[in-house]
């Protein structure tokens, strides 16, 4: 807060600044990101210390599968961002369509993730087979749990949008914030597991 008080006065803005969704959700976003940062740091540290073993195991991953999954999740994020804007504009039919699109791309991501797991398990890479795959399965699985919760959150969002008497823009934005968190956590996981050398 002190930073704000000591900062030079900002030029007047035409529209009022507002926090998207419940400010409370941002506590989750920041706290959960910090927990993940801790997981990532542990992974990167051990990875850097045992580079050769990690590289060898990592070569089993299909980068293009990861890229596809990432783009699917980014697209779902894009859809829910549109959903927030259309809901704000009162175009609820379009908003509902965008919410379903979000869920759809989420399911595509889920399918790609499961395909990736099945592929790795067929190659003999499991949670216990090597250090790299410990982290791989751990990080993708804990993210998967977040994604599953994300579908519950989307359910809440659709419930909000479906009834004229509900339609709380705040809750819609809160749900979207959660979904974007799932998205950006995956962006990090993808870079760290698939690309980092």
């Amino acid at each position, binding site marked *: 807060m002190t930073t704000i008080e000591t900062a030079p006065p900002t030029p007047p803005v035409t529209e009022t600044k507002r926090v998207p969704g*419940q400010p409370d*959700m941002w*506590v989750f976003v920041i*706290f959960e990101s910090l927990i993940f940062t801790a997981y990532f740091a542990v992974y990167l540290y051990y990875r850097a210390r045992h580079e050769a073993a990690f590289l060898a195991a990592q070569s089993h991953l299909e980068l293009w599968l990861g890229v596809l999954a990432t783009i699917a999740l980014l697209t779902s994020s894009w859809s829910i961002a549109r959903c927030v804007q259309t809901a704000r504009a009162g175009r609820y039919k379009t908003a509902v369509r965008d919410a379903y699109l979000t869920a759809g791309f989420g399911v595509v991501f889920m399918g790609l993730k499961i395909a990736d797991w099945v592929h790795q398990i067929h190659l003999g890479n499991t949670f216990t087979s090597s250090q790299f795959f*410990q982290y791989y399965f*751990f990080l993708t699985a804990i993210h998967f749990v977040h994604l599953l919760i994300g579908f519950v959150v989307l359910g809440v969002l659709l419930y909000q949008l479906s009834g004229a008497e509900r339609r709380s823009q705040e809750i819609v934005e809160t749900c979207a914030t959660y979904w974007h968190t799932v998205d950006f956590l995956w962006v990090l996981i993808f870079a760290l597991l698939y690309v980092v050398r």
Partner: protein
Amino acid sequence: MSLPLRDDPKRELWYAWYAAVFFYTLYSVIFFLVTHVQPPGQPWYTPTQVTHWFAHYHNGLLIGFALIFALGGLSATSIALITYSIRRMSVSRAFAYSYLILYAVSAVPGFLFICVAMTAGTFRPDRDPQLQQWLYDFGFLSFSGTMGVFLIGSLIWMTAILLDKNRVFPKWFGYLNLCNALTEVVVAPSWIFYRGVFAWNGLIAWWIDVFVFGIYTGVFLMLLRNMILREDFGSGPLPELPLLARQAPATLELAS
């Protein structure tokens, strides 16, 4: 805020709160400093090393766990306070009762088994080292690996807070419950690994988890305190409780 006074209408809440703080402090001191079971012993110890471990912490283990055996019942106070907090919310009582039962049950695998297993191991240092190792595993794994109650419990509390319209707890604490629930999941690999970051003393399965749990516990104790401070029972005499109170339950809204 002075210590609970005789006439303080909130005294029973304060007794429970101080007892809860006392219990968590005692619990931390005993587990970290007296018995040295936190941070946990090494999962990769050979049977002989386990026997040495029991011998090394002999007195601390026996005295520390004896204190838990004597005072562990106080764990019910924080559960009762949280149950009460959920009762104050505009949600079904089912949430409150689920929380109460989940955590009442969790006491046995949550801290009683480790006390029994470690006491048994320390009790007979000359026991076959293979069996000592079994007791050691039983102690640590029952303690770390039974997180389901805490997972579901946190989710129940979270849902109640998010649905509540009385603002008993801030919404952000509801979301913090989700963070806590998700770190509980992460302990599960301790059933699989002897060493590394996912073992029962690992960086991820133990250190990060305990850190999050510590913050979570500190936060909810402070929030419970705020809840009690905000509680307004008035300062008048206790409601008259004729023997017919049951017929007129309106006089004691919350006692029902």
